[in-house]
């Protein structure tokens, strides 16, 4: 059963206590069973199981080339898996999409102004022009770029462009948000700032997040669970070698005594595979 939204209430900034009360937010928002991926007759990744619940944050780490981004695309349905299936129950709410994605390079459409870029996912959802505009301005305000709505993307810095990419993904009020190394191409200072912003943003969105990164510290900093991909045997497809829960409070996590040992542990696991 679902509760239809009767007004254009801003779900993205409603307090968690209200949003979690929705009837359809109790089951998993993503369910992947026995997923294996590859090209032609080669399997690069096998046996992936993942159940993701609302507001949960899972980081996927592993050596480069292990298939992190491929896994993300398969979870999103952009790639067909060799075996297994992914289920992302459709949100029944009008004007939303089940999932959306933030890419490594922001991949904004250069021929659209900032606001029109954020509106992309809202097109074809039966919203009026005014509704689309309003729905685009909310996440733009959330990432602090409402004043840039009428700018062309190329006039923005890399960090600002990535914020627009995040706003574009949030605008459709996804139940699952896929993030593919979103901060990898940013400089260190901007990356830190956006990591902090993402932590703050999690209080304001009910989306579950799957976050691919090669930066282990970033994974431990942001995630509730860190899923580690690796090769157990040479020549065999990669698997999920371990999934660690990060039971640390999100605020100032980096300063906690348990933070560094956890990062080292994940590094050690990756090093062994």
């Amino acid at each position, binding site marked *: 059963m679902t509760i239809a939204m009767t007004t254009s209430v801003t779900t993205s900034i409603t307090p968690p206590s209200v949003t979690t009360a929705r009837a359809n937010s109790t089951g998993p928002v993503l369910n992947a069973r026995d997923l294996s991926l590859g090209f032609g007759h080669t399997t690069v990744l096998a046996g992936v199981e993942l159940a993701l619940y609302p507001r949960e944050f899972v980081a996927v780490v592993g050596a480069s080339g292990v298939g992190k981004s491929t896994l993300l695309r398969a979870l999103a349905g952009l790639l067909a898996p060799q075996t297994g299936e992914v289920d992302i129950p459709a949100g029944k709410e009008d004007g939303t999409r089940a999932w959306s994605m933030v*890419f490594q390079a922001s991949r904004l*459409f250069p021929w659209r102004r900032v606001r029109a870029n954020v509106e*992309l996912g809202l097109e074809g959802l039966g919203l009026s022009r005014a509704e689309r505009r309003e729905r685009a301005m909310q996440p733009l305000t959330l990432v602090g770029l409402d004043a840039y709505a009428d700018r*062309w993307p190329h006039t923005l810095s890399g960090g600002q462009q990535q914020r627009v990419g995040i706003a574009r993904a949030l605008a*459709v009020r996804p139940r699952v948000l896929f993030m593919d190394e979103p901060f990898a191409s940013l400089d260190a200072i901007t990356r830190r700032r956006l990591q902090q912003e993402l932590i703050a943003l999690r209080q304001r969105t009910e989306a579950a997040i799957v976050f691919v990164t090669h930066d282990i510290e970033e994974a431990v900093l942001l995630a509730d669970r860190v899923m580690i991909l690796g090769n157990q045997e040479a020549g065999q497809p990669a698997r999920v070698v371990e999934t660690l829960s990060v039971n640390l409070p999100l605020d100032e996590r980096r300063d906690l005594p348990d933070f560094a040992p956890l990062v080292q542990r994940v590094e050690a696991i990756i090093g062994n595979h």
Partner: protein
Amino acid sequence: MNPTMTRSRRSLLSAAGLVAFVLLWELALRSGLLPGSLVPLPSSIPQVFWYELIDGIWLDVVRSSLVHYSVGLLLGSSLGITVGVAAALLPRFDALHAWLARLLRPIPPLAWIPFAIIWFGINPSAAAFIISIGVFWINYFASYSAVHSIDPSFDEVAQAFGQRRFLSRLTKVNLPAAAPGILGGLRAGLGQGWMTVVAAELFGIPGIGQRMMEASSLLATDIVVVYMLTIAGLYALFDFLFMLIQRRLLRWQP
């Protein structure tokens, strides 16, 4: 080009070059170095132009040529862009017409004159048809390669944001992303079409080309030069206007 040269200085030099050329031409004729039967006196051109103008001939032939030109351009461009974009997006259509295109492409527009006359007769349609052929191929290849070289990651973005239908992807990704290339083709076609106009009129369809043939059969080289300058002037005008449109449409580019 010397990078330290300012723009105004460059324009000044260009103007000086042009004036020097005309002066030398005039001097060569007046000194008898160049026989007057070969080329007209530059100083006689304004007056000849004035006569053509007050006789109403200039306006008549320019108007006819512009009709041939615009119909040919419109037809050739729209078909060329449509077929080029379709070929780049639909692999089956691409394969189906690939050899046909390779066969027809090298045939120059003027080689179609016999068929133009048989199909349309000696009338404006025939001229427009011939003009459209050259314009078609330019736009066809420009659009084809523009759509072909679109960064595929844009398509993934469109997919990730629910824009999966062919028409959505066409209008939201393919056409805007290919716009710089398509507009470049249009602009090239604008020039190519104008160059074909004269040739397409040489076999008797009223227009600038026919007037030039008439004049040359009377050895009226001054009239020929008037229309050569007319062609150059009109092309410069069209190209300038199109450049304004192009700049406006592509203002998103850095």
